[in-house]
C-alpha cells in the first residue's frame, strides 16, 4: 500500500489537474451509460403502456443526446487516462535512467545487468498497466456498482436481492482464478525459457553438435521441451476457458433468476415489463467490470511489487558522489599519489563487511611516468587503478592528484582528465565515428582520424565498406576483439587525458593482435602519467615503476631489472611464464639469435616491446 501511495504521490499528483478532469469525465460516462436502460424502461412502461407516441419520440431524442454527450466524455476519459499513465511511465523511465547511470560501480557490480534492465522495462510496464487501466477500471466498477445497485434496490429491493445472487460468486471466482492462474503462467514462462535455452545453445554450439554428430540427440532433447510447453499451455488454456465460460453462464443465471422471480410478479402486476428489462440491462452492464476484479487485484499486486523494486533503485544512493563543497578540478600536472590507501568492496548484503581488497598502498607517480601493476588474478590490480577515476572511493587513506585529495573535485571534472581503457572493450550501437567520439561528441573529423591513427585503428576502419560510418555494436558490423580494443583506445585518446589507465587491454586477444595493441599503446602513453596492468611481464619492462601486487598489498616495487635481481615474487612469475619458451629456445639453439646474431627481423623487436622508451 505504501508503495502505491508513493507512486501516486510522486508521479500522479503532479498531474492532479488532468487527473481531476479524467475522473470527472469517467463519472459522467458511467452515469450516462446507466441512463439509457431507464429511458427504455420508461418507453415500455409509460410510452407503450400509456400509448404515448410523444414520449417515445422524446425518448429517442434523449437517447441520441445522452449518447452524444457520453461519447464526448468517453473520449475525454479514455484519452486523458492514457495521457496520465503514459506521462507517469515517461517520468518513471527518465528517473530510472538518469538515476541508474549515476549509480556507483559498486552498485552495478552487485546488481545483475539483466535484472536491472528488466526493472526498467517490465516493472515500469507493470506500473503503467496499473495506472493506465486498473485504476480507471477500479473506480469505474466502484461507481457503476454503487449507482446500479442503488437504482436496482430502490426500484425493487426484493427483485434486486434475488437477481444479483450470482454476482458475488463471480467476483470471488475472478479473484481466486487470478491467484491460481499466476503460478501456471509463471511455470509456462519458465518452461518456455528452458525450451529457448536448449534452442539457443544448439544454435550457438552448432559446430559442437555437428562435430560430435549429436543432431538426433539434440532433436530428442528439444522435442521433450517443446512437448512440455505444449502440455502446460493446454492446461492453462483449459483452465482459462473453463473459468471464462463458467462466468458467462453464471451471468446468464441473473437473467434466469430475474425472469423466474420477476416474471410471475409481473404477471400479478406487482412490477412492469420495463422494470424487468431495465434490470436485465443493468445486470449485463455489471458483468464485464465484475469479471475484471480479479485482473485489477492482480495488477495492483504486480504494480506494488514492481513499484517496490523501482523505488528500491531510486532510493539507492550512489556510494561515489560529489562532496557538497566539491570544486572543479584544474588542469592536472599529473602527479598521482596513493597515501596509505585501503579499500574494501561493500558486500552484497549491506552491513556485512568483506575483507580488504587493497591494504595500505602508498606510492607516488611523477608526471608522465609509467607505472606498471602486475600480480596474479585477484591480487587487486584492477581495483587499485579503478580508484584513480573514483570508480570506487577509498575506504582509508587518500588518492591525491597534484597533492589534492581527488574527493575534493567534482566527479565530472576529475574523470574528464583520466582516460581509461578497459579489459573488455565495449562499443555502443552507432558508427565507428560516434564510438570514437563517445567521450567528446564535439570532436572534429580530423581529431577523430588522428586519434584512430595513433590507436592503429585507422587502417582497418578505412578498409570497412563504410569506413568511419560503418555501423557497429549489437546487430552491426562485427569487429574482432582486437579491433574493438583499438577503437576503445582511440576513444580514450580523443579525450587527451593527463592520466591514462590501461586495464589489461590485451587480456582477450591473440598474440598477434596483442602485439599491435601494445604498439598503439606505446604511442598513446607518451606525455601522460600512465598506469598499466598486464598479465605478461613484457609490459612491465619499460615502466618507471613496477608494483607487484599480492593479496591487495604491494609485495615488491622497483624497476624491472631491480625486481629480477631481488629474486622475489616478480622473479617467480617471470620464471613460470617463460620457462617453457626458454626451454624451447634452448632446444632449438635459438638462444643464439637472441644473443645478438642479428636476424633481419631485429629492428622490429624494439617496437615489439611496446613499453620500452
Amino acid at each position: 500500500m505504501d508503495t502505491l501511495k508513493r507512486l501516486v504521490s510522486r508521479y500522479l499528483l503532479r498531474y492532479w489537474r488532468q487527473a481531476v478532469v479524467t475522473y470527472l469525465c469517467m463519472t459522467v460516462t458511467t452515469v450516462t451509460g446507466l441512463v439509457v436502460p431507464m429511458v427504455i424502461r420508461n418507453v415500455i412502461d409509460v410510452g407503450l403502456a400509456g400509448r404515448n407516441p410523444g414520449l417515445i419520440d422524446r425518448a429517442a431524442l434523449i437517447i441520441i443526446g445522452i449518447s452524444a454527450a457520453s461519447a464526448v466524455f468517453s473520449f475525454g476519459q479514455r484519452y486523458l487516462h492514457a495521457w496520465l499513465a503514459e506521462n507517469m511511465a515517461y517520468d518513471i523511465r527518465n528517473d530510472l535512467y538518469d538515476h541508474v547511470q549515476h549509480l556507483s560501480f559498486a552498485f552495478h557490480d552487485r546488481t545483475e545487468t539483466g535484472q536491472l534492465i528488466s526493472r526498467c522495462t517490465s516493472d515500469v510496464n507493470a506500473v503503467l498497466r496499473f495506472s493506465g487501466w486498473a485504476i480507471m477500471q477500479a473506480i469505474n466498477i466502484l461507481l457503476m456498482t454503487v449507482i446500479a445497485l442503488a437504482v436496482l434496490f430502490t426500484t425493487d429491493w426484493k427483485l434486486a436481492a434475488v437477481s444479483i445472487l450470482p454476482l458475488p460468486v463471480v467476483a470471488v471466482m475472478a479473484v481466486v482464478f487470478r491467484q491460481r492462474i499466476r503460478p501456471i503462467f509463471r511455470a509456462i514462462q519458465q518452461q518456455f525459457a528452458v525450451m529457448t535455452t536448449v534452442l539457443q545453445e544448439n544454435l550457438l554450439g552448432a559446430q559442437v553438435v555437428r562435430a560430435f554428430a549429436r543432431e538426433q540427440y539434440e532433436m530428442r532433447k528439444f522435442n521433450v521441451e517443446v512437448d512440455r510447453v505444449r502440455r502446460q499451455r493446454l492446461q492453462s488454456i483449459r483452465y482459462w476457458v473453463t473459468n471464462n465460460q463458467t462466468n458467462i453462464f453464471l451471468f446468464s443465471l441473473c437473467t434466469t433468476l430475474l425472469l423466474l422471480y420477476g416474471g410471475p410478479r409481473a404477471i400479478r402486476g406487482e412490477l412492469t415489463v420495463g422494470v424487468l428489462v431495465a434490470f436485465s440491462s443493468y445486470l449485463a452492464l455489471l458483468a464485464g467490470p465484475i469479471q475484471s476484479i480479479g485482473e485489477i487485484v492482480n495488477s495492483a499486486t504486480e504494480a506494488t511489487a514492481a513499484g517496490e523494486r523501482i523505488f528500491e533503485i531510486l532510493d539507492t544512493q550512489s556510494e561515489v558522489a560529489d562532496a557538497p563543497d566539491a570544486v572543479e578540478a584544474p588542469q592536472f600536472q599529473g602527479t598521482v599519489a596513493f597515501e596509505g590507501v585501503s579499500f574494501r568492496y561493500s558486500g552484497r548484503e549491506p552491513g556485512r563487511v568483506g575483507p580488504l581488497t587493497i591494504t595500505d598502498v602508498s606510492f607516488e607517480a611523477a608526471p608522465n611516468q609509467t607505472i606498471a601493476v602486475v600480480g596474479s588474478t585477484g591480487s587487486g590490480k584492477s581495483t587499485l587503478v579503478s580508484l584513480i577515476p573514483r570508480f570506487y572511493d577509498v575506504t582509508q587513506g587518500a588518492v591525491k592528484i597534484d597533492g589534492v585529495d581527488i574527493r575534493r573535485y567534482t566527479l565530472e571534472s576529475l574523470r574528464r582528465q583520466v582516460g581509461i581503457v578497459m579489459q573488455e572493450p565495449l562499443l555502443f550501437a552507432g558508427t565507428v565515428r560516434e564510438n570514437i567520439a563517445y567521450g567528446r561528441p564535439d570532436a572534429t573529423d580530423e581529431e577523430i582520424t588522428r586519434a584512430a591513427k595513433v590507436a592503429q585503428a585507422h587502417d582497418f576502419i578505412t578498409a570497412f565498406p563504410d569506413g568511419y560510418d560503418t555501423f557497429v555494436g549489437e546487430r552491426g558490423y562485427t569487429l574482432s576483439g582486437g579491433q574493438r580494443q583499438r577503437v576503445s583506445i582511440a576513444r580514450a585518446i580523443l579525450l587527451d587525458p593527463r592520466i591514462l589507465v590501461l586495464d589489461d587491454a590485451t587480456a582477450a586477444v591473440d598474440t598477434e593482435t596483442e602485439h599491435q595493441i601494445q604498439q598503439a599503446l606505446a604511442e598513446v602513453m607518451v606525455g601522460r602519467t600512465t598506469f598499466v596492468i598486464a598479465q605478461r611481464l613484457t609490459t612491465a619492462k619499460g615502466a618507471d615503476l613496477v608494483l607487484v601486487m599480492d593479496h591487495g598489498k604491494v609485495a615488491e616495487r622497483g624497476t624491472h631489472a631491480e625486481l629480477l635481481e631481488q629474486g622475489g615474487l616478480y622473479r617467480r612469475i617471470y620464471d613460470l611464464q617463460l620457462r617453457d619458451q626458454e626451454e624451447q629456445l634452448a632446444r632449438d639453439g635459438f638462444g643464439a639469435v637472441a644473443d645478438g646474431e642479428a636476424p633481419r627481423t631485429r629492428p622490429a623487436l624494439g617496437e615489439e616491446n611496446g613499453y620500452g622508451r
Partner: protein
Amino acid sequence: MAGRRAAKVPATQAVPAPEEKPAVQRPDQVDDRYAEYDPNVARRLAGYIFPYRRRLAFAMVLVVSASALSLAGPYVVSLAIDEGIVAENWSALMLAVAGLTALNLAAWRIRVKQADILSRTGQGIMYDIRTQMFAHLQRLSMSYFDTHEVGRIISRMTSDVHVLEDFATWAIVQVVNDTFVLFGIVGVMLFMDLKLSLLTFTVLPLMAVGTFIWRAKARDSYREVRQAISRINGSLAENINGVRVVQSLVRETLNFSIFRGINRHNLNMNLYASRLSAIYFPSVEFTNALAVAMVVWFGGREVLAGNLTEGALVAFWLYVGRFFQPIRDLAMRYNSLLATMASGERIFQLLDTKPDVVDKPNAQPLERIEGRVQFDDVSFSYTPDKPVIQNVSLDVAPGQTVAFVGSTGAGKTSLIKILSRFYDVTGGAIRIDGQDLRDVTQESLHRQVAIVLQENFLFSGSVLDNIRYGRLEASEEEAIEAATAVGAHEFISELPYGYHTEVQEGGAILSTGQRQLIAFARALLADPRILILDEATANIDTQTERLIQQALRRLLRGRTSFVIAHRLSTIVQSDVIVVIEQGQVQEMGKHQELLGKRGRYYELYTLLNSRQRALEEGIG
C-alpha cells in the same frame, strides 16, 4: 616492418568474414512488418492444418451451434415477455425460463469443449512446426550459422510460430463464428420485423467503414508503438551494460538527453494510439445508440400500431447491441491474418533453406578408419570470386600431427572447416583412407572425426553431461578417466558438486582455461581417429596454460591430428608444420628444416618469440 605487416593483416582479413552477414541494420528497426496476403504462404500454412481437419471441422460445428444458442437468447427473452408476462401465461413463462437456462447450459459446455479441441489443435500445430524447424536447423550447414544471427533464428521459432498458432486455431474458427453471428443477427431481425430491421441496418455500413479505417490506422500506430518501445529498451539496456564506460567518459548528461528524446517519442506514439482508440470506441458506441434510438422511435410506433410486440422490441434492442463485436473481431482478424503472412513467410524461408552440405543419395557410412588424410589439390571459397584456399595438397599418414601456422586470415580456419566438412570443397578433393569425404555420410564422418574449437562451447547441464557429450553412452567412470587424462579432474573435483556441478549458460562459472580442458575431455572420450583442433589464443593464467599443454600432448597421441597452432610447444612437437599464407601452402616440413630455410616460418616463429627475447636481452 614485422609490426606493420602484423598490423595490416587482420585489417584486410576482417572484411571477408562479416561480408557474409546481412546488410547492417540499425537496431531500432523492428522486424515486424506486415506482408500482403500471399496465397502461396496461405496454402502451405493450410498444409499444417490439414492433418487436424476433422477436429477442426468438429470444432467449427460446435462453435456455430454455441453461437446459435446464444443468438437464440434474446429471442427466448422476447417470448418470455410476450407469451408469458404480457399474455399472463405462467406456464409459458416458466417454459421460456427453462428453455433459456437450457440454452445457456448447453452453450457453456459446448464452448468449453470447443476451446479444448481448438487449443489441442493449435498446440499440436505449434509442436509440429517447432520440431520440424529444429530438425531442419540440425541439417543446415555451418555456413548458415555464419550468416544468420542466433537471436533472429530464435525469434522465428518463438514469436513467429506463436503468431501462427493464433491464426491456425482461433482465427479460422472465430472468423466462421463472427460471420455466422453477424448474419445470424441480421437473419433473426429480418425474421422478426422486416421494416424495423432494415432501418436499423443503416448503421451497419457506418460501423463497418469506421472499423476498417480504424483497423488500418491502429495497425500502423501499434507498429510505431512497438518500435518506439523497443528503442527505449535497447537504449536502456545499452546504457546499463555500458555504464562503466559511460561514467568514465562522463557521458551521462548527453545520454540522458538522448534517452529523453527516445522516451518522448514513445510517449507521443502511445498518445497517438490512445487517441485513435479514444475516438473509435466512443464513435462506435454512439452509432450503436443511433440504432437503439431508431428501434425505440420506429419500433415504439410499430408496437403502438400493433405491428410489433413489446418482447420483440426488447429483443431488437438486445440484438442491436451485439452488432458491433463481430465487426470489430473480423477487422482485428484481418490484421492478424496479415501478421501471419509475414511470420509464415519468415518461417518458410528458414525451412526452405537448403543445406550446402548434403549426403549424396548413395553415400556410404565411413567404416572404421586408419586415419590417412589426403588433400588433393583442394580449393575453396565462400563466395565464387574470392578464393580462400587454393590448390592445397597434403598427404598425412595415420597418427601424424599436422600444425597449421600462418597469419590471421591466411585460411587456417577454413582449412579445418572443409576438413570437418562443415563446408564442401569447391575444387579438388579431401580423402580419408582413400575415400572422398563427399562420398560418405556426414554422421559417420563426424563419429570418427572430432573437432575442438576455440570457443569451447559448453551446454547447460552438469560437467559430467558435457564431457559425455562426446560419447553419450559412456559411463561415469569413463568420463572421469577422460577428465583425469587431460588434467581436468583436479579442478572439477573442487567444484561445489564435483562432476555434477551445473555449468551455467555459456559456462560462466568456469574460466576459459577450464572450459577448454573440459572440451578436451569431451573430445578424448569420443576417442576419434582424427582430431581437429583450433588452439585457443586468449591469455590463460600460467598454471592452467601448463595443464593445457600437457593435456594437448595426451589428446594428440595415437591419432591423426590437425592443429591450428599458436603455442610454440605444439608447433615444435608436430610431425608436419604447414605454413599457410593467402590460402596457399607456403612452406611445409619439420620444425628444424623450416627454421633452416629462414623463410616465412622463421619469420612467424621469431614474431612469436619476440617478447621473450626482448626479456632475455633485459636480463643479459
